[in-house]
């Protein structure tokens, strides 16, 4: 993160000799001025993040307002339980992040290191679960609008009953895992235990992804095995659109599914009551929900990945013992960013997963 201008890497001009001078950049007068600048900087950066996401919230509000029926149908394809699990994982990572900040503030670099590692592992667990969710949807043909082709019962799988998409998504984490583990071993063997420690941390961090994937897959297989739950999840929703053809007049406004010309108002049918029927596909207009879903969660995931990079950086610096009472800014700044990513998820979760 470019915000965190901390130590003077260009190494010139240390004209200000404070006790802890090495982390004061040459153009600041005091640690406090440096800290305040960084802090204001990160807050402004968070403002830009909020506005960056705002565009997606506009899309969400608009389409939910004008097409509530699409949202009601679509959210049945999202698994509340996985979403809830991920929410708690992120909240926990926020807790450990806050503890890491506290440790840095009290100069406890060792504790800080541990908390940061836990935070990173939570982040990758989150991504692992997300990968399972995404790949499962892709198997079902649930894509953004133009590629959306959901057909009841059509479900692709690849080798070992795993989703091909999941395997593709896991290629990079696998490479990272091998790379980090291998490099850690190499560093260890060449007697650079200190460096090795960092790469071991990175290896553990990537393992979190696989933990998330395994957890997600096990859960998904469990509910697939439970055919009743599966049926409820997979079939009830599309039927709603077709069975519940409602007179437009009662709807009163324009919120009909325009795509296939079939009207449908947002009356509250309990979908369990809807008689099972056709095997037809879901209208593609439902894809708009998933366009928005993928944009929102995708952008959020990119922020998680960016956060992991920043976390790795301060993780390394904790190992080097950089933090002390008058110098802990970078941890604080990354922490704020991390909490913002969490904040956004706090809204995304009910908005996307809990529509009724």
């Amino acid at each position, binding site marked *: 993160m470019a915000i965190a201008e901390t130590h003077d890497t260009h190494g010139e001009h240390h004209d200000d000799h404070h006790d802890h001078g090495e982390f004061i950049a040459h153009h600041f007068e005091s640690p406090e001025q440096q800290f305040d600048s960084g802090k204001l900087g990160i807050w402004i950066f*968070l403002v830009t993040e909020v506005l960056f996401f705002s565009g997606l919230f*506009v899309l969400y509000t608009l389409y939910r307002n004008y097409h509530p029926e699409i949202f009601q149908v679509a959210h049945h394809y999202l698994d509340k339980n996985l979403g809830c699990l991920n929410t708690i994982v992120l909240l926990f990572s926020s807790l450990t992040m*806050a503890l890491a900040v506290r440790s840095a503030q009290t*100069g406890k670099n060792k504790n800080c290191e541990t908390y940061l590692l836990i935070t990173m592992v939570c982040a990758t667990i989150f991504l692992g679960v997300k990968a399972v969710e995404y790949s499962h949807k892709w198997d079902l043909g649930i894509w953004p609008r133009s590629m959306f*082709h959901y057909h009841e019962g059509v479900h692709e799988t690849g080798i070992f009953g795993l989703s091909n998409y999941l395997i593709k998504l896991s290629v990079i984490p696998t490479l990272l895992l091998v790379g980090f583990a291998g490099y850690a071993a190499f560093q260890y063997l060449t007697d650079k235990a200190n460096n090795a420690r960092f790469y071991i941390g990175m290896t553990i961090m990537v393992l979190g992804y696989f933990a998330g994937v395994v957890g997600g897959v096990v859960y998904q297989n469990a509910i697939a095995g439970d055919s009743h739950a599966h049926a409820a999840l997979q079939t009830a929703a599309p039927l709603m659109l077709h069975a519940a053809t409602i007179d437009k007049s009662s709807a009163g406004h324009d919120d009909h599914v325009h795509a296939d010309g079939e009207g449908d108002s947002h009356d509250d049918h309990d979908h369990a009551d809807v008689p099972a029927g056709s095997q037809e596909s879901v209208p593609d207009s439902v894809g708009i929900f998933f366009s928005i879903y993928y944009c929102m969660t995708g952008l959020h995931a990119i922020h998680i990945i960016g956060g992991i990079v920043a976390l790795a950086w301060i993780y390394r610096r904790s190992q080097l013992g950089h933090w002390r009472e008058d110098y802990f800014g970078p941890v604080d700044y990354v922490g704020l960013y991390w909490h913002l990513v*969490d904040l956004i998820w706090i809204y995304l979760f*009910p908005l996307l997963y809990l*529509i009724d």
Partner: protein
Amino acid sequence: MADHSHDSHDHPSFNHPAPIPMLFGVFIALVGLTVATVVTSNIELAQFAFPVAMAIATLKAFLVGAFFMHMWWDKGFNILVFLSSLLFVTLFIGMTMLDTGSNLEQVESFPTTETSSLSTTEY
């Protein structure tokens, strides 16, 4: 515990470590609220479902912001900066919403490409 964070060292004025029990307390509250929002989404609340979900989310956001992000102790100006972003988001959403309803009919009546699964291969 709470005192511990303040006594042992002479912290510079910009350093306010948060008490550990508070952090854990906030976390537990957050998990509780998450469970609450999932539970309320399962019961029939009709038109209240959305406001309730948003209220819970906002409460959670408040907890994260005030305690995890230290806003409670932060400089007023920093808080102002951050919260002002929400004002502009509201403006963006509000004015756009106010307008887009009006051309809905044209948007809806535009012939769409409804080729279902085949459309993947086209583009």
